[in-house]
């Protein structure tokens, strides 16, 4: 029997389950390597060469090079691992989160100060399809 995954019905959200984790194993392990200052330095000096040391898919490598976190997540990345790339770039968690919403950094920050994204209209995938 297939596993019940009710969370597939939440819009704009990818739950990092075993399926995503398998897909993103090397992408996330690459991110993990950036916890070491020496690896951060090597990655920054030649990103492509450093990525090529990892058995990642080309899509995963391209998504990292483009710093497209939505693409990274679709390719199996998890935000806590991907945060190591942001840290290497000197980005805050708010900048990283905001970058996935299609909003400008300023608009995202203003939304948060104003109380955040409301839950109304953001619970079910079908609510987004209507938009």
């Amino acid at each position, binding site marked *: 029997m297939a596993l019940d995954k009710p*969370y597939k019905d939440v819009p704009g959200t990818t739950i990092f389950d075993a399926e995503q984790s398998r897909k993103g194993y090397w992408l996330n392990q690459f991110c993990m390597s950036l916890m070491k*200052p020496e690896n951060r330095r090597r990655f920054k000096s030649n990103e492509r060469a450093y990525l090529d040391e990892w058995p990642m898919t080309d899509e995963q490598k391209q998504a990292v090079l483009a710093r497209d976190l939505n693409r990274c997540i679709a390719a199996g990345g998890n935000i806590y691992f991907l945060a190591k790339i942001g840290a290497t770039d000197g980005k805050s968690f708010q900048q990283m989160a905001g970058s996935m919403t299609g909003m400008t950094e300023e608009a995202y920050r203003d939304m948060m100060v104003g109380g955040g994204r409301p839950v109304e209209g953001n619970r079910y995938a079908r609510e987004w399809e209507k938009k």
Partner: protein
Amino acid sequence: MARITASLYTSHVPAIGAALDLGKTHEPYWQKVFSGYEFTKRWMKESAPDVVFLVYNDHANAFSLEIIPTFAIGTAAGFAIADEGWGPRPVPKVIGHPELAAHVAQSVIQEDFDLTIVNRMDVDHGLTVPLSLVCGQPRAWPCRVIPFAVNVVQYPVPSGRRCFQLGQAIRRAVESYDEPLKVQIWGTGGMSHQLQGPRAGLINREWDNRYLDRLIAEPAALAQMPHIEYVREAGSEGIELVMWLIARGAMSDLGGGQAPKVAHRFYHVPASNTAVGHLILENQP
């Protein structure tokens, strides 16, 4: 005998640590967050415990995808501060309590909670931000700390029900420890927040406050809440709140004692991407 004197609940947003470490605490944005902990810092000085049993989650720092323990208890003498990519936070090393930690592990494993025992583990902002919020910026932390890491990174995380039951087993374990230690249990993480995808930035103030009400008054019913409600209503990372149920389960009222006293309650939006919730419950003698 050892006893649990109080439980404390707080969010553990990394930006709070950065604001502290970079001296931004007096900026109006951060003042609103830190004002909610002024009471707590005084309270901590007046009722300092010997040990804090600190329930938190690791954020891909101690545990990569190589090993993902659902419940991990730190039984080491000390725990280094993790380099999460920005360099380690400039905070004191965490001193453990190996004897009590081993006692809790032995007790609860024999009650069918299969903990992972960890003797080497760097601790990240999930553990150090709550310590900073409650203890300020001392040269050494004022008490021993037993880190208790819960997997909330890879789904499925443990159920609220399981966390609540585990808390009850931890209370029994602490109360069967011979030394007369004062122990606090902290549940950290939450409240509503989502850090990923186009829905990032989700906050649900009404749901969060209802969660606080129910955590105080009807925790057993609250523990039945399924994962999907956390995800849908409180954001994908709001699911961290299951950890609060471990701390709540460890309170005396679940073992036939009186209802706890609400010593402090605070709620504020936002700190970075997150709703900050904070609560202190004291066991009644």
